[in-house]
């Protein structure tokens, strides 16, 4: 089918606003009489709060409120996907976290008091005047230590937060059949999202007495969390979504929402709360560090026989989304391969480190480092070409994952790997002290939530009398072009140009609920809801146009802002005429539709068997590195990213996802790490937490395959998270290729590479 809008690089409405610096972000707006929020945070990772004295802070002129735990009506934030997780949480702890710490703090940066004052300066001064007497307690800062008997307990009941298990076949038998077995332990660090826009929001009480928060968030449904902690009816709290200056999962959990809501509700005045970069570093969820012990076996011919893995993740001080991140690791532990005999045990552990939670790829990227490292190690042990070994074992249509899920369409993984590799071109000749290495990493990543969560999204599409369309859908736009894609889908279906389709904002109460912009679910969920609503509107418009043009509805086409008879383009009526006629005749020109993702029962908690996710996105990175063998410095000279997008909605946005995912992965692979000393960050600032700049980005080629196999609109799959998944494995494999030793620990710093080079010579 030929599309007119879909697949083009249609300019986004928000792009112009962003380059012009218009106030489209949550922190851009001020209100008359607005107060400034400020959070007092614990400097200790593990301590008892002996006493909090707020008198001096409250006495400071210009201070409107100094709030502590006792001021929070229900000081317990529950960690669950709203209303959706209870079923699967059975057997796990009900994870909670105080809004403001009451008698003990469990991580550096835990909020202890919230202040609102007339100016930021007064708020800062008041924060200094809050006297908190801490008594330091023994803490635990390593998940392996936390699992040992007698380790200090972060929360009562032991440090194991959640275990997951995957069993397929008989792993003992599988290793018996193996001619070669490789074993490595892979380690990854805590890393930060480092979005340009830190956590921020503005709150006020509107004329109806509704607590309204304009917040930089991926989850408008957090209005429920705010209502719960304030013990208000859910309808009394509204979240208004602004465009985000980046989210990457870091704005999936509650960030400013509850603290801001509390300050507004107690002061009855508008309040703005903006986290500083330092607060952002210590105050929101990080990516989980993992220790992954992998054993993988194969026959002499290279057929995988068995995979055994033990995954341990550091949840930090509270649960947040750790059990679910770990679940993604469980499901993706084998990689996109047929493995007949599998045993995976995964554990997430409490420590007094920063809270770890969602970050782009959500547990799928750490396992990719391990399973792709294993594939290259196996290829070396077998004397096989690493690509040939992968080809031999890739999942094909009809194969089953270790979870028992059948691949119902052809996974395009082999195609992505071959095209990525071919894109690298000729191998650069080494010269002087430069060693050249190249490698691929193949990956798969779920898009859309776990099947058992009964995920759904709603959207409304309607026509205005001038023949333009309006989309109402509460899907936060994190910068990936979510809103523009919904408009493009509408424009395509209704035969309009994209500038004739307007999205009217994202709001928990004024636009239909679309769920979170997380889990690479918005194109699948809101995209399908918008598609259904647009098609329903189209049905009405076609019926009216058929009557106007005295033709059969089946012969009516909508294109270029008008309706016409197929084959007779002169028999046409402008869209405005169709809408006016429909309105005059009482025919609806709007529709509200809900899309429900396919459902499957909860997986078996003992064996991990079941259908965990509805579909996956497959993709590969191929890259070439140049390593200075005297300094160990790695330069990625060329990177090719190839993914099966199913279908491309906006080409520039899709390519942007692939490029951004690749560069974010290079930072994770080569330079990023939150340096902790007993739970306290030594680099909560960009002076010493380095991320890639444009000077560090290599030439990136992006290749998008369009299989049409996706469950999203027109056969699209999700790309947001998958775009990053193969990145760290590809870098580690390419460096390993150049060095001649397996790089198993991130970040792969120059110093580590030099040490590896020395160990091999």
């Amino acid at each position: 089918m030929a599309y007119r809008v879909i697949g083009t690089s249609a300019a986004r409405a928000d792009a112009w606003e962003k380059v012009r610096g218009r106030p489209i972000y949550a922190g851009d707006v001020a209100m008359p009489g607005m107060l400034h929020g400020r959070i007092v945070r614990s400097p200790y990772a593990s301590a008892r709060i002996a006493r909090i004295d707020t008198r001096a802070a409250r006495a400071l002129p210009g201070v409107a409120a100094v709030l502590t735990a006792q001021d929070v009506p229900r000081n317990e934030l529950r960690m669950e996907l709203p209303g959706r997780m209870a079923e699967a949480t059975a057997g796990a702890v009900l994870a909670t976290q105080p809004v403001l710490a009451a008698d003990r703090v469990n991580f550096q940066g835990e909020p202890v008091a919230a202040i609102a004052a007339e100016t930021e300066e007064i708020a800062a001064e008041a924060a200094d005047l809050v006297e908190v007497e801490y008594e330091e307690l023994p803490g635990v800062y390593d998940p392996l230590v936390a699992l040992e008997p007698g380790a200090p307990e972060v929360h009562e009941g032991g440090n194991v937060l959640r275990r997951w298990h995957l069993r397929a076949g008989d792993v003992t038998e599988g290793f018996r059949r193996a001619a070669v077995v490789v074993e490595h332990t892979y380690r990854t660090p805590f890393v930060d999202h480092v979005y340009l826009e830190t956590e921020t929001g503005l709150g006020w009480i509107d004329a109806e007495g509704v607590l309204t928060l304009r917040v930089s968030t991926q989850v408008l449904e957090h209005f429920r969390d705010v209502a719960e902690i304030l013990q208000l009816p859910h309808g009394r709290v509204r979240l208004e979504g602004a465009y985000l200056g980046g989210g990457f999962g870091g704005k999936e959990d509650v960030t400013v929402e509850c603290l801001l809501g509390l300050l507004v509700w107690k002061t009855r005045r508008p309040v703005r709360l903006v986290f500083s970069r330092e607060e952002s570093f210590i105050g929101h969820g990080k990516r989980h560090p993992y220790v992954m012990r992998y054993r993988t076996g194969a026959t002499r011919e290279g057929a995988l026989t068995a995979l055994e893995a033990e995954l341990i993740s550091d949840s930090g001080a509270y649960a947040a989304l750790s059990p679910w991140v770990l679940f993604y690791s469980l499901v993706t532990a084998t990689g996109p391969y047929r493995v007949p005999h599998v045993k995976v045990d995964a554990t997430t552990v409490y420590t007094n480190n920063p809270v770890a939670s969602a970050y782009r790829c959500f547990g799928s990227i750490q396992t990719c480092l391990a399973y792709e490292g294993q594939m290259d190690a196996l290829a070396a042990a077998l004397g096989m070409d690493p690509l040939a070994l992968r080809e031999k074992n890739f999942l094909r249509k009809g194969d089953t994952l270790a979870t028992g899920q059948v691949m119902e369409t052809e996974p395009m993984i082999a195609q992505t790997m071959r095209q990525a590799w071919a894109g690298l071109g000729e191998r650069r000749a080494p010269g002087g002290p430069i060693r050249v290495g190249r490698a691929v990493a193949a990956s798969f990543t779920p898009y859309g939530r776990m099947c058992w969560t009964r995920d759904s999204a709603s959207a409304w599409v309607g026509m205005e009398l001038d023949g333009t369309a309006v989309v109402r859908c509460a899907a936060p736009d994190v910068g990936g072009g979510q809103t523009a894609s919904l408009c493009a889908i509408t424009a395509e279906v209704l035969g309009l140009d994209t500038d004739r389709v307007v999205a009217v904002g994202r709001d928990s109460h004024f636009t239909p609920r679309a769920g979170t912009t997380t889990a690479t679910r918005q194109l699948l969920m809101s995209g399908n809801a918008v598609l259904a609503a647009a098609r329903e509107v189209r049905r009405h418009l076609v019926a009216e146009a058929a009557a106007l043009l005295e033709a059969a509805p089946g012969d009516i086409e909508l294109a270029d802002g008008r309706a016409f008879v197929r084959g007779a383009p002169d028999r046409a009526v402008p869209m405005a005429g169709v809408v006016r006629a429909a309105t005059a005749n009482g025919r609806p020109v709007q529709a509200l539709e809900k899309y429900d993702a396919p459902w499957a029962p909860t997986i078996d908690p003992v064996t991990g068997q079941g259908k965990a996710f509805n579909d996956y996105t497959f993709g590969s990175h191929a890259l070439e590195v140049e390593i200075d063998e005297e300094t160990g410095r790695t330069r990625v000279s060329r990177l090719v990213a190839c993914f099966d997008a199913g279908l491309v909605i906006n080409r520039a946005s899709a390519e942007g996802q692939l490029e951004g995912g690749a560069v974010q992965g290079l930072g994770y692979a080569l330079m990023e790490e939150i340096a902790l000393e007993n739970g306290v960050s030594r680099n909560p600032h960009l002076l010493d937490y380095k991320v890639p700049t444009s000077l560090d980005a290599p030439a990136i080629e992006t290749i998008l395959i369009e299989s049409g196999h996706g469950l999203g609109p027109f056969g699209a799959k999700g790309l947001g998270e998958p775009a990053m998944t193969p990145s760290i494995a590809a870098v580690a494999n390419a460096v390993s290729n150049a060095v001649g030793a397996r790089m198993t620990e991130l970040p792969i710093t120059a110093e580590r590479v030099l040490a590896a080079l020395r160990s091999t010579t």
Partner: protein
Amino acid sequence: MRLRPFELVEPETLADALAALARLDGEARLIAGGTALVPMLRLGLVKPERLISLHRLPALAEIRTDDGTLRLGAIATLADIERARAVREGWPLLAEAVHRVASPAIRTSGTIGGNLCYAEAASDPAPALLCLEAEVRVAGPAGERSVPVTGFFRGFYETALEPGELVTAVRIPAVPAGALSGYVKFTPRSAEDKPLVGVAALITLDTAGRCAEARIGLAGAAPTPIRAHRAEMVLRGEAPSDTTVRAAAEAAAREAEPLSDLMGSADYRREMIRVWVRRLLVAMRDGTHRAEPNQD
């Protein structure tokens, strides 16, 4: 984080600036470009009650040459210095090193005096100034004095300035005729970073091809920027053969007293000094050293 309230003093004469600095009512700090001070204020590492801005003292921003000596006013920006024709032609080593500081935005704001007074071990300009035998002009309650840059860095983020003193200018004598020079900056993390090590070198060769003059300045090699005197001694009087250059690099690595931090360990820094001193000297000797706009 917003800055804490402070009093801003904007003197219009050097005497007023010194008077403001001499007032004994609380901590005062001088501010020019603010590229080092403002992050420190934000992080709460310094909490001055008074900032004395030098921006109304245009004489302090002047870049000029007097009888072959280059005089850089203390608040001349790094961008102005790297672009100044006199600097590029007469003191190319300085232009090259200054060009490597951070990013264009920082260089547009940051000043040479501020860079010196921050006294960071990982400074790009400092190794070049050490090689160029620059002299720091200082004004204070007791009048003016000169401090050779080799004596200006006293310790970790510590300078030879006495209370009440400020830097007014940097004077750099003419570069010896026929000198070869160069600067290399090694940033193993992001390309936009402080140097893990920075190496500046300046050599002159006699008619027999032996090093008559040899100066090597190092950043990231000790708690302060330093001259690698032992390495220089290895070079002086010798032709810069591969063997001699290796010996000089080895001497530099040995005399360095680097610190360990999040960028790298002391051992790694020492190793990198060995590599980059050798590479720079070889490239200067062979005429292959190029002042690069960025590392790679």
